[in-house]
Structures are given as C-alpha cells and as structure tokens.
C-alpha cells in the first residue's frame, strides 16, 4: 500500500505538471508571445476554462499527502515555509490576474493584469522546479524529521538548474498547447518559440541529468534493480526526438512530445527517489521514506479507496471539459 500511494502521488503530480504545465508555460510567455488585446484574449481563452481545474490536481495531491505521508507534508511544508508563502502569493496573483483582466475594458487595467499573469506563471514554474531539485538532492533533515529551510539553502546551483529546466520544458509545452488552440500570427509565433524552447529544454535535460548523476550517487540504484523503470528515461528521450521531428506543422505531435518529456522526467525522478520522499543530506537514516513517514495501513487503504473513486470521476470530467473546449479558440462576447 505504501508503494501504491507513492506512485499515486507521483501520478497525480505528473498529471498536474502536464495539465497545469501548459497554462503555466503559456502564461510565462504571455507578454512576449501574444501581442495586442486580440491575441492576448485568444491566449487567455485557451487556458481560461481549464486552468482552475488543472490547478486543483496540485491541491488534491497536497491533501492526499496529508493523509498518506503526514510526516513528509509536515516536514516539507514547514521547512519550505517562506518559499511556500511566496508561492502562495504568486498563486493568488496569477489566479486574480486571469480572472479579473476582462472585468474592465481599459487598456491600463488589462496591461497590469497581463503582467501579473505572466510574472506569476513564470515564477511559479521556476519555483516548483527549484522545489523539485531540492527534494531530489536532499535536505538537512535532522533526527526529529524536520529541517529549517533558508533561501541560501534552497537556492543552490543544482536546484536553480532544475528550476530553469522546468521553466524551459513548461514553456515549450505551453507553446505546443497554443499551437493547438490558436491561429494567425499568434500561431506562427508559437511555432517559432516552440522550436527555440525545444533547444533550451533539450540542453537543460542533458545538463540536469548529468548534474543529477554526479550529485546524487544513488540515482541509478533503482534502474539497476528494476530495469523496467528504464522506460521512463527512454520516454523522455523519445519525446525529445519526436519534438525535434514535429517542428513544422505537426502541432498535435509537438504537444504529444512535450507531454512525453514531462511524464518521462517526472517518473524518472520518482524512480530515482524511491523509496525516499525527502532524503536527508545529514544521515540517510533520517530520510523520510514511504515506510517511516506513512500513515497506518488501514488509513492508507481507506483513503486510497475514497480518493481513487473520485479521481477516476475527476479524470473523466477533465477529459469532458477539454473536449468541450477543444480546437481553436473562438472569441465571442463572453470569456476572458
């Protein structure tokens, strides 16, 4: 059950990264990609009906971590206290920006919220990547299971590298999403940016893989023990190759490629980390693992059943909403 929960959470966060990833990525490039009110409305209406539902995957994953691995939730969230407060303010800024931009028809009002949406998306993508880097690399967790995170501790070269990787991959993913949803000049620009961001993403994937292999000696342990997990890094590679091949008008293939890269990267990260959830840099015995940080077996089972039924419904519902708003954005009087 502990292992099932580990992979459930990994799956939830991966789904979150794929779904919210495209609206974070599109948002981070909003100011540069979309020029003029018309194009910006197209971009916002591409993410408007779905961004909130996408973000809920993160909230639900957080809630599930409380019940499945309470000690990890406790240590991680209190240790990252200040950083998470900043993330919260950015989430507020971003949510308010996208929802309130079209409330008033005034150039300056829109310009302000466009900037807020862009800045919020960009920094959230970066900080989530930084957090992921720290979790992979390890934190100074003491014998009591807690650590105290300072900015100098959290912003180390490795985590900055993973932050940039996240930004590049999500940006690439966002442009690929826009390639499905937009038309005209915006589409042409999205295609051009998609090509360039592919290059950045590929470069950073190589760099951060090398850095991980160098810094975290246990990286390959699980891949040796369970060669089947090698499918994850291969998926990343396949996504990158297919991304290279889908450069011109192959917009569907491009979006599938960036999806594969995100799924591949996050599942590889999960396979690398297992069974650690928060590795300790002080002493491996202090690491919080799927065994020593979990709830009781009955609690794990009960919450799994209660949540999985809902998650299936949620996945079906999410598919329905994406289908309803599928295809190119049509601007009308309503919407963002």
């Amino acid at each position, binding site marked *: 059950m502990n292992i099932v929960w580990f992979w459930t959470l990994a799956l939830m966060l991966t789904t979150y990264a794929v779904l919210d990833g495209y609206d974070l990525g599109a948002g981070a490039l909003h100011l540069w990609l979309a020029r003029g009110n018309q194009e910006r409305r197209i971009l916002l209406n591409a993410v408007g009906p779905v961004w909130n539902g996408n973000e809920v995957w993160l909230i639900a994953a957080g*809630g599930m971590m409380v019940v499945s691995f309470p000690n990890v939730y406790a240590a991680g969230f209190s240790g990252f206290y200040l950083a998470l407060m900043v993330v919260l303010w950015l989430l507020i800024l971003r949510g308010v920006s996208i929802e309130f931009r079209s409330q008033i028809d005034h150039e300056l009002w829109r310009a302000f919220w466009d900037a807020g949406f862009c800045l919020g998306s960009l920094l959230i993508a970066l900080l989530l990547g930084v957090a992921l880097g720290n979790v992979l690399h390890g934190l100074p967790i003491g014998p009591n299971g807690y650590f105290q995170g300072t900015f100098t501790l959290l912003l180390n070269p490795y985590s900055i590298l993973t932050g940039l990787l996240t930004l590049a991959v999500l940006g690439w993913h966002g442009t690929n999403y826009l390639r499905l949803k937009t038309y005209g000049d915006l589409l042409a620009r999205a295609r051009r940016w998609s090509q360039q961001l592919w290059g950045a993403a590929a470069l950073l994937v190589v760099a951060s893989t090398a850095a991980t292999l160098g810094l975290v000696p246990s990286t390959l342990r699980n891949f040796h023990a369970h060669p089947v997990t090698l499918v994850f890094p291969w998926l990343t590679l396949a996504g990158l190759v297919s991304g290279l091949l889908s450069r011109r008008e192959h917009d569907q293939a491009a979006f599938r490629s960036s999806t594969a890269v995100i799924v591949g990267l996050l599942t590889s990260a999960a396979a690398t980390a297992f069974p650690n959830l928060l590795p300790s840099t002080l002493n491996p015995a202090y690491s919080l693992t799927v065994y020593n940080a979990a709830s009781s077996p009955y609690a794990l089972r009960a*919450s799994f059943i209660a949540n999985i039924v809902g998650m299936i419904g949620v996945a079906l519902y999410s598919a329905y909403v994406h289908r309803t708003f599928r295809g190119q954005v049509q601007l*009308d009087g309503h919407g963002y």
Partner: protein
Amino acid sequence: MVDAVFAHRIQFAFTVMFHYLFPILTMGLGFFIAILSSMHLATGDKRYATAARFWARIFAINFALGVVTGIPLEFEFGTNWSRFSAFGGGVFGQTLPLEGVYAFFLESGFLGLFLYGEGRVPRGVHWLAGLGVSLGSLLSGYFIVATDAWMQHPVGYVTDPSRAIRLKSFWAVLLNPYAGWQYAHTINGALLAAAFVIGGIGAFYLLSHRHQEFARVAVKMAVIAGAVLSLTQLFPTGDFDSRNVVKYQPTKLATMEGLFETEKGAPLAIIGMPDTQQGRLIDPVFVPEFLSFLAYGDFHATVNGLKAYPRELWPPVELTYYAYHIMVGLGTIFIAIMIVGVFLLWRRRLFECRWYLWILMLALPFPYIANEAGWVVAEVGRQPWLVYGLLKTADGTSANVAVGETVFTTLGFAGTYLMLGILFLFLVGRVIYQGPGGDVTEVPESVVAHPAA
C-alpha cells in the same frame, strides 16, 4: 517578540477569516442561482435567466477570491501546523483531500462550463452545470466542516504507543456526530447571508428607482427565504449544534455563556461583561434558570461553571463570550427584520416602504459578522486544545519556523488581502452599479472591427 504559538494562531485566524467571507456567499448564492436557473428551465421566463446571470457574475468574482484565498489554508496545515499534521494527518486528513477531489473539482470545473459553456453545450447540460456548482460548494463545505468537527470532537481513532494516533474507522470520521448539526448551522448561516445580500442589493435598486422588476423578485425572494432561514438558524440548527457543545465541550459552553459558578437552574446571561479576575459577569441581565433549560431541557438541571475546571483549560473568556453574544444578538435582529419584511409583503407595502428598504440594504454586512463570530466561538472556544482533549494548540505548531517569519508573512498576507478586498468591493460594486442586463465582458465594436488594436 511575539510568542510563536500566538503568531501561528493569528496567521491562521486572519487567513481563514478573510477566506471565509467568500465561501459564505459561494455556498449561499450558488443555491439561489440553481433555483433561479431551474425556474427558468421550468417556466421559460426570461427574467429568471437574467437574474441567474446577474448573480452568477457576482458569484464568479466571489468564487475566484474564494479559490485563491483557500489554497493558503491547506498549505498552512503543513507550514504552520506541521506537528499537528504529523500527529493526526492519517485521521483528520481523511476528509481534507476529499474536498479537493470531489467537491472542489465539481465546482471549479462546472463553474467554467456554467459561465463560458452557454451555447456550447446543450441547455440541459448547462443547467446541470449550474446545479453542479451549487452541489459542489455545499459538498465542499461538508468535508471542511467534518475536518473541523474532528478537531472539536475527535472520533474514529485509536491511540498507539509508538505513533500517537491511528485511524480506526473511516466512516466514524466522515460521519462524526458533531459534524451533522454543525454543518447544518453553517450552511444555514451561509444561505441566510446570501438572502441578505440578494435583499440588500434588491433594496438598493428599489430605493434608487432602477431595475425595479428585477429588484422586486430579489427582495421578495430574500424576505421569504430569509424569514424561514433566520428561524431555522436558531432552531433546529443552532439549538442542536449547541447541544453538541453541551455534550462534548463543557468548558466552551461555560465560556460562551459567561458562567463562572456551577449552578443548579443556571440563568442565561443576555448581556453583561465577563470579569475573569473576579470570576463574574459585570452588570448582567439574566433570564433565570433558562440556560439549564436550553442545555438539558430541564429548568433545574446543573450546569458546570468555568471554576469547575482548571484555569489552564479555560478558553480565552472575553473573546468567546462576546463573539457568541454578537452572533446570537445579530441572529435575533435578523429574525425581526425578516418577519417585518414578510409582514410588509403580506400587506403589499414591501416595495414602497422606504424605511424598511433602507434597513434591508444596510443590514447586508451583518450576516457576515454573525457567521464569522460563530466560527470564532467554535474555534477560540475550543482552546487551549487544537484537537479537543487530545492535542494542545501549543503542541501542534511548526517548531522549525522562526517567529519573525510568521510575523513577516502575516503582514504580507494583510497587505495582499487588503488589496484583494479593495479589488473585490470595486468589481462587485461595478457589477451592482451596472445592474442586471449590463455585461462588461462584451467586446466593444472597435476591438472586433480592428483586431490589431
């Protein structure tokens, strides 16, 4: 420097109280929108559709703020209350993610469909989406109340020598006997607040001679629903909710009633100021023996006073006492306002009676105060416990967070929320000023004609 526990409490109290201003209306208004849109579907009367769309615009602004201010609270379980999460996550955490999974998805997903799907999806589906939004917000409320009810009255766990507590029964936690009436009282309060918002805005239009037809429907709906809801707020929901307090939390009962001495045939204090030094009420007005009756249905029953319990187990007396009396006092005034409204409606003078419409308009903020005060009673009255009888608030905080960080981020939230509050009032004020029928999201002709602009 401030005490760390106090800093965490202030931060949580501030962020949760600010957040709660929005769900009150989401839960309450969603219900009325669902009713209006059902009436449109049933009768085909366009007025109901116009009204539903108007309230949905206010709902949407409100919902957006509810979502963005709600996320910090989930985070704070880990950031501020990490030892509580580690201690009881496996138990109280059963209900918390369900909110995200079932209810939150339902409402946030359906809201997009309801607001932007009109014309894209069949009419029946659009109506269902409206219903889903309302159901989702109500369900969302249940999972949150059930989580809080576990802190008020922990059930469904066993104590384990090595790991503090373990879950024993999922269903016991989900169907906590404390949660039922607490939820009913909470939702009733939210619906009542929505009735006052609808009535207040309707009264504003009638007083300013605008959108009369819309306003009459609104005011009529508000006083009828309000009269019923203000009464059910007191009985049965309020009454049975406090019986759970009598049963499970005697110190909270004594504190909210300002009862220091244990008495047979205890009186009910209508007003009076608690003096914790002397252990008495200053200048009280009592209804003799009435508290015994309310608590146990018997005028001669014995009610334990605060002095029956060790001093360190007393909740903060003044705050709990005043919050409770403000809630009950306001609740009584709400009943009076709404009964007078129904009377005027019956005499066919409601829409012309300007003094009454003034009262109805100015009453708008007060249900918010009553709702918040009710939660202050529930949460402050639970102190010094975080989980009643099981875990002290002081033992639930994050020990690895410096006080200064909490103070700094509380100030950050205060500033952020001040801006959000101004923004909210500004945007909702605009919607009200424009009135039903006006639509700001309409693209002006110039933009359509010159897409490059």
